[in-house]
């Protein structure tokens, strides 16, 4: 059942009469990197918000690994194995880099009050293990010397990198990355793209929203072009780039 990894059909959502999603459908295979491109206001971020349960769709259905996501609260959807980053880059800035990653692990025993007091050993053992894997993830990402800095002390590029490390720590199978390389230095772009392109090897599926077409061409297996809330074109990066409907939409 490879095709049923993520099935989206007939999504509709409008804000004050403006269509953000117009009968949007698509189907994703596991282990692929999909680029979601399109002009500003095409509904790309809205699609992310609907998938992750932050905004309810007016109609349509989404199923993730065979589970219907409709009307599920955002935190439950996250716990099913969907992680995301935000266009306006969200992190917890007043706690350390390491703590941001620790926060992102799912289902920790120490997150329950009763466990802290009645099963302290289980909680602290779990925490120690999480700490080890968090440190190694951060070292691998090149943030090993920033562990105890507060997240606000990182550069913008490092913060974007950290937000991706947080998604990895969640153990999610589907990662939704909203503009992961926008506005950062070329060296950091390379770093982040190499991390992203390694993800399918770990069985992870990625959707990235990105305006940087070079980056999209470099890492994406498939590209979906959106305009006015609808899917205009889908295919390999080259196919989409040459699609006359896409060229027309960009010229408009």
């Amino acid at each position: 059942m490879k095709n049923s990894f993520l099935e989206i059909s007939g999504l509709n959502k409008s804000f004050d009469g403006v269509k953000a999603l117009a009968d949007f459908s698509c189907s994703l295979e596991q282990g692929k990197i999909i680029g979601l491109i399109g002009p500003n206001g095409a509904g790309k971020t809205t699609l992310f918000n609907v998938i992750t349960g932050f905004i309810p769709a007016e109609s349509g259905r989404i199923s993730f690994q065979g589970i219907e996501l409709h009307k599920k609260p955002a935190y439950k959807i996250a716990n099913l194995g969907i992680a995301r980053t935000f266009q306006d880059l969200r992190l917890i800035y007043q706690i350390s880099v390491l703590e941001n990653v620790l926060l992102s692990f799912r289902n920790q025993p120490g997150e329950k009050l009763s466990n802290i007091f009645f099963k302290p050993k289980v909680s602290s053992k779990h925490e120690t293990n999480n700490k080890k894997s968090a440190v190694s993830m951060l070292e691998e990402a090149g943030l090993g010397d920033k562990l105890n800095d507060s997240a606000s002390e990182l550069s913008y590029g490092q913060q974007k990198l950290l937000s991706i490390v947080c998604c990895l720590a969640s153990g999610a199978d589907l990662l939704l990355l909203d503009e992961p390389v926008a506005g950062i230095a070329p060296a950091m772009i390379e770093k982040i793209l190499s991390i992203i392109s390694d993800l399918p090897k770990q069985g992870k599926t990625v959707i990235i929203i990105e305006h940087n077409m070079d980056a999209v061409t470099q890492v994406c297996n498939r590209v979906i072009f959106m305009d006015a809330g609808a899917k205009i074109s889908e295919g390999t990066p080259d196919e989409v780039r040459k699609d006359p409907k896409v060229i027309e939409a960009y010229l408009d």
Partner: protein
Amino acid sequence: MEYLLHVLIMICIYAILAQSLNLVIGYTGLLSIAHAAFYGIGAYSAAIMSLKLETPFLLNLVCAGGISSLAGALIGFPSLRVKGDYFVIVTFGFQVIVFGILNNWFFFTGGPMGLPGIPQPVIFGWHISSHIEFLTLAGVLASVVFLISHRIIKSPFGRILQAIREDEVFALAAGKNIAAYKVSVFMVSSAMAAIAGVIYAHYISFVDPTSFTVMESIFIISIVIIGGAGSLWGPVIGAIVLVTLPELLRFIGLPSSIAANIRQILYGGLLVAFMMWRPQGLVGKFRFRLENAKK
């Protein structure tokens, strides 16, 4: 000597109140002005139980904590629906309701006259009567509250509270059921405030509604903010400073009628000054409300 011990006992009581409120305000970022209500629920539960049912101190302590945490859950739920300033108004409403009940339900609370003659506690045969014994009791309970807060804050649970304080959207996207966390932290905090109330009731041996007004809530908030919201030692330092300060005024030789007014002005002035120039308080790191937005 007894006077000094009395001040120390009051410091312990306020340290418990501030420590528990700090979990809600300092760590979770929910500004509640209903803390005196939970303090009052604890004190009245202990008073009513020991006067009408003649229950022992430890049972009063457990029951008062339980009753108060249920009341805390009641106010935790609206916190899921309303945010920021509106939540403050909800807590204010709760505070007013509790005061109204204490002041008017004569059969249970004695109304404005309060409940006198609350017996001194006996714990496993240890009769607590002198100031030094009360200080030991209050000190032990304050330490327990401190240690519980410490463990909560240093745990993954505490980390989630801090995430909620700064960015609920991030916490949701990380799979945290923030509604459950808010309600639980309110329940724990309210139970702790009740502990302070129980000590107070048995120590003073008299409760009346004027001890649990909104002014009292604001006093507890001042302790948290001036000590340092979002730090473990902040509420302790704050309680020491704010309980001792007005006592020092006595030694300047002001007549007591003026001293009482000066006290209120002093608290108000300090609160404004700290909010403007040192929002993180004496020992805190977290700048209360000021920098909740991105850096």
